[in-house]
């Protein structure tokens, strides 16, 4: 009873006071209830894919948005997870639960290797060099078609659960757990160091932070989550093909990340949940399916012209304000700060959110 009351108090005082947190709660509840309310296999399939891509996009944000290591080859980790898991379960016949973990481990190792490789690179050099990595991997896979399945990839993998609902819950739970985990990481001291590295690496180093070690760690962490998404993706679609390493996928994740708002974690997730079902929905019209990518790109471009920082920072500025005195966030309709009672009418300096990339 005590715990229940404490939970209720937490809910009321920490979550429901802020519209953005309320939205997140509503979204998580909707995800949990979806198969009960709308058990259409097609819808479930799309939302499952959305969940996997959301994990992937959030992992890119951890690396690019927070640490400023703008990775153009993030598909490498996704593909590594997918291929490692698929190869193990195809050649070794191991249960998919184990191979997913193994896939994530392989992706993490690759993340470490990439981090080591890119230790001395900075800015655009890093972006363009990492773009090459998944392509090198694709070239290697194509050169040994007997082992990797060549252009067709490895098909006929086992699913994690037999039913569509089961698969959906696995993907949704994995997504919620990893996104919440990444959000916690980004909100901890570790995340603070990452902000420092992005904004001014020299100053961070001068303050006694071993930036090289932090960058390695964030590469590994980001690759871990991307690898989980990739491995689950391979087992959900029952095929791991070269499309998981494509340049298009790497670019797609950059679009999601920046469209949603960099350095937020929830931004890319929101972007995937808006854009992926939107493109699928467009594809369901016979006449529009050819124009799908065109409309997608045009929408991204148009939205970007109005909200160059991404949609979630824009939305958050609309529904919340920052207290000028204690820097706490408040719902936009409050007149006084919920903590220190300072008047919120003055908007001087409030336009800069707490997370202000660049």
């Amino acid at each position, binding site marked *: 009873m005590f715990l229940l009351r404490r939970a209720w108090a937490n809910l009321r005082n920490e979550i429901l006071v802020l519209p953005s947190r309320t939205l997140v709660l509503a979204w998580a509840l909707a995800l949990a209830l979806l198969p009960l309310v709308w058990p259409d296999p097609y819808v479930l399939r799309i939302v499952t894919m959305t969940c996997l891509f959301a994990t992937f996009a959030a992992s890119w944000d951890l690396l690019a948005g927070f640490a400023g290591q703008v990775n153009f080859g993030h598909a490498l980790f996704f593909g590594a997870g997918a291929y490692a898991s698929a190869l193990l379960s195809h050649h070794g016949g191991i249960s998919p639960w184990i191979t997913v973990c193994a896939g994530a481990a392989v992706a993490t190792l690759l993340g470490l290797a990439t981090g080591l*490789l890119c230790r001395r*690179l900075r800015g655009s050099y890093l972006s363009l*060099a990492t773009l*090459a990595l998944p392509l090198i991997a694709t070239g290697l896979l194509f050169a040994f078609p007997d082992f990797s399945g060549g252009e067709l990839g490895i098909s006929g993998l086992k699913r994690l659960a037999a039913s569509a609902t089961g698969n959906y819950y696995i993907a949704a739970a994995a997504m919620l757990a990893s996104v919440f985990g990444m959000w916690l990481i980004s909100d901890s001291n570790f995340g603070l160091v990452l902000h420092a590295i992005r904004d001014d690496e020299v100053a961070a180093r001068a303050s006694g932070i071993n930036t090289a070690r932090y960058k390695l760690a964030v590469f590994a962490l980001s690759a871990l989550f991307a690898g989980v998404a990739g491995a689950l993706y391979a087992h959900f679609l029952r095929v791991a093909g070269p499309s998981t390493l494509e340049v298009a996928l790497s670019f797609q994740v*950059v679009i999601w990340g*920046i469209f949603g708002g960099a350095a937020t974690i929830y931004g890319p997730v929101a972007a995937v949940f808006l854009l992926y079902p939107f493109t699928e929905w467009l594809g369901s019209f016979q006449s529009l399916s050819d124009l799908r990518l065109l409309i997608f*790109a045009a929408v991204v471009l148009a939205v*970007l012209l109005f909200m*160059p920082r991404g949609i979630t920072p824009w939305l958050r500025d609309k529904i919340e304000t920052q207290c000028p005195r204690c820097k706490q966030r408040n719902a936009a309709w409050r007149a006084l700060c919920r903590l220190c009672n300072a008047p919120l009418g003055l908007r001087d300096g409030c336009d800069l959110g707490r997370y202000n990339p*660049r």
Partner: protein
Amino acid sequence: MLQDILVTGLINGGVYALLAVGFSLVFGVARIVNIAHTAFYMLAAYCFYALLVHAGLAVASAAAAAVLAVTALSVLCYKLVIEPVREHEAAVLIATIALALIFQELMQVAFGGNFLGIPATISGVVSLAGVNIPYQRLLILVVAAAMLAATWAILYRTRLGLAIRATANDLEVASLLGMNVHRVAMACVAISVALAAIAGVVVAPVFVVDPRMWLAPLVTMLAIVVLGGLGSLKGSLIGALILGYVEAITVFALPAGAYLKGAVALTIMIVVLLARPEGLFGVAFEEER
């Protein structure tokens, strides 16, 4: 085989040099990583195809019209899409990606996803050191050399070139000295896309034209630019020749070379970056703040 490698490498290198020099120019002056650069190359190839095959224009006028149209389009895109979000680096980046996707899909809708061939614009073969080189391929080399020389002349022999180099060197100081840096950036975009468009037009009769033809050269071009040092034109030129030859050698000398051609070229780029993080001719990083 050696002669094949020598000639193919030189021709590949010429095409890559046209693309990479233009990309470097825009990066150096405006700090834009223009992912849509090779999409303009694709657009020019399509434009040339449409004018030549469907509209039935003469070769020279079709080529000139294609280059002009694509250059005008690029300036328009810069004004409408890139300039409003210039101060948000990330937004510029995905704006160029989105533009590239839009061009790809537009061409897909307009011409279908098939490979289109353009009839040879000049016939005949010249024999050089025992290899037969069609005039068509020789034309690529000649045009590439001429255009690179013209770019050099613009940059080092005109007032505009002086302004471009000054802006690339230090944007604020150039602006303080009264140069219109916005117009300089626009001129750079125009020059760079014109180079890409010329590459697209001369390459079209040799390669096939399809909506996804921008991806492979994009990756190689980015590798070249990084290899040579971002923003360094000399580096781009030499990088283009290096990777052109590397690709030719892999294709001709390795088994499964056609699959590995990209991988080997990119591995070389990474090895160079490991030894010299600023590329061959790049300036060492000043610790930016």
